[in-house]
């Protein structure tokens, strides 16, 4: 059984600092949910409040329809995987995993059956009697997750679980986590400051701002393609921001960037109303821009510039292009061919083109 989590107006102050400010959030049942935010934005505190390790100053927490705001931690069917794993150093792998079952006084044969089933699934069956200190980081991680899911919690909380692992292992564990969630269908809440991890795992995600509030809620695609604010646009992925003002010319919406020229953009009427036309920001992702040495037809907007730097990373190349107003913008190209038709080099004059649909207009 799995249930949703609902936070209503949750606030938390620690040592006089407001950590969480009136957070209202619904974590959908049975989903892989990611909570993304910069360091120190209170996301770990939010997780600890859900787990019951800390108590709220104001607001309510619901598990399904049940108010769990004041339920003690050991009664909540919510388990947490700590950032440092917090394995019991005096117990071996088996006893660590069996811990929650042995507390309930379950029959030994049943515990045995469940633990070994999980040990096999997690490829830990050869390490049954090893102590945590004898395990590698990846193995400790697996034990921590196995320990947290064996008593079938309704929600599993993961506090930056991959932060201590190296890059390759992290990618592998991410996929394992997604598969695990698909199999269990337990609500997973995954806290991270790494946007790549969050975008990879999440069905829905939520961005927290540095002041301890919710900046945006949505699917990874919604958040990446249609950020609500410059904070989200900059925090998730890279983007190029232009300041200017919005105008109308017939049916078309125009954006006048100071000393760069005028661009056609697309903007919904609702959004248009929200943005103060005099202080608008245009955001365009580096990969949405096409770079070429010759002017190309069929694009809504084109801009000229000089190549300032080239970062070749194998599968893609990142160009930094100097515009005539002295601003630098980033352009990201996939390296699709061994030998591209035209080689772009340092100090080349290039045309940057993009479609108006790929632009996001934001409020200052």
């Amino acid at each position: 059984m799995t249930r949703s989590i609902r936070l209503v107006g949750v606030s938390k102050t620690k040592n006089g600092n407001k950590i969480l400010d009136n957070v209202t959030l619904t974590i959908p049942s049975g989903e892989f949910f990611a909570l993304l935010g910069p360091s120190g934005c209170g996301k770990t505190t939010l997780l600890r409040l859900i787990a019951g390790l800390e108590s709220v100053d104001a607001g309510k927490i619901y598990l399904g329809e049940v108010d769990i705001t004041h339920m003690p931690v050991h009664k909540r069917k919510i388990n947490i995987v700590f950032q440092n794993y917090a394995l019991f150093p005096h117990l071996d792998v088996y006893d660590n995993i069996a811990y929650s079952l042995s507390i309930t006084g379950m029959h030994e044969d049943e515990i045995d059956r469940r633990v070994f089933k999980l040990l096999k699934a997690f490829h830990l069956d050869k390490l049954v009697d090893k102590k945590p200190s004898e395990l590698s980081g990846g193995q400790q991680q697996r034990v921590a997750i196995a320990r947290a899911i064996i008593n079938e919690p309704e929600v599993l909380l993961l506090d930056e679980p991959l932060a201590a692992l190296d890059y390759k292992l992290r990618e592998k564990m991410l996929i394992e986590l997604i598969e695990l969630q698909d199999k269990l269908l337990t609500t997973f809440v995954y806290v991270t400051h790494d946007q790549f991890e969050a975008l990879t795992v999440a069905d829905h995600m939520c961005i927290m701002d540095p002041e301890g509030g919710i900046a945006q809620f949505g699917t990874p695609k919604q958040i990446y393609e249609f950020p609500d604010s410059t904070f989200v646009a900059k925090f998730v992925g890279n983007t190029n921001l232009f300041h200017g003002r919005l105008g109308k010319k017939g049916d078309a919406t125009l954006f006048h960037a100071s000393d760069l020229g005028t661009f056609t953009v697309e903007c919904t009427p609702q959004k248009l109303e929200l943005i103060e036309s005099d202080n608008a920001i245009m955001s365009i992702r580096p990969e949405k821009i096409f770079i070429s040495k010759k002017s190309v037809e069929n694009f809504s907007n084109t801009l000229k510039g000089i190549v300032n730097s080239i970062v070749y990373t194998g599968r893609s190349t990142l160009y930094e292009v100097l515009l005539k107003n002295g601003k630098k913008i980033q352009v990201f190209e996939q390296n699709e061919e061994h030998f591209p038709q035209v080689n772009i080099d340092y100090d080349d004059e290039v045309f940057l083109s993009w479609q108006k649909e790929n632009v996001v207009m934001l409020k200052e």
Partner: protein
Amino acid sequence: MMEQEVVLSPGSSAPALPRFSGVQRFLKLEFLSALGLLPFIWQSLFFFIPMLLLFSMSFIDNSSGTLRFTISHFTQLFSTTYLSIILNSVGLSLLTTLITLCIAFPFSFISIFHFSKYKNIISLFLLIPFWTNFILHIYAWFFVLEKNGFLNQVLMHFGFITEPLAFLNNFFSIMVMMIYYYLPFMILPIYSTLERFDSSIFEASMDLGANRFQTLLKVVIPLCIGGIRTGIFLVFIPSFAEFLIPELMGGDKYFFMGNVISLYMFEEKTLGTAVAFTTLSLAVVLMIVYFIQKGLVLFTRRLTRGVRT
């Protein structure tokens, strides 16, 4: 703790030892192993040899001016008087150990996990008593416990008693001083063991469904059992041979092993009897230490007993 196992792939041989020149070899190997001998030599000169010499004296009778072998020093010990002194000593030190443990464990836990901000100040206060002479502490306690002392004054001021109570020169004053003196020896090892653990381990236990009491039994106590054992031995062994506190606080009424040894050693000048008694007390201590050790191992195993049979 088990040693980490190094897994070598099949067919791979152990890496060859690097070759050293003669001087390097001497510096790296012989010199280092020679250094290892130093503590052994030190121990032999200043501990083992004096102990052996002392021990041999318990078999020597020089009352007639010539040295003769004898076991009379030991046989005279097997009397009810000495037996009751031994039992008293065991009782005193076990009681001291038990009470200090009951104070030290909650004290360490609460001060580390609830008052972690004041950690340095607490450590300082634990160490301050070691900066001044022990005799001074005893005199300080005299002022507290004597007939017109602080404790009686306070109790009378608040109307708990009308007549001053006799706190000094009895078993109560001995126990107060014993606990006061030995408490830091119990707290320090437990405190420093608990300090090493992140509180997330205890949170994990609660999160997995254990209440406070179950967490205490299954996680907290097993984790600091090493510190508890060190504390028990640091208090039990020296308090067994304690003679200054019973002598100064007990008003000549209470005799423990330490007092008997000091009596034979310094008053009666019968070295043989004193050493025989020391040997006997050593045997008793070793026996009890062995049982405590066994008991602790069993206790931990029982607490953390896995579900596997």
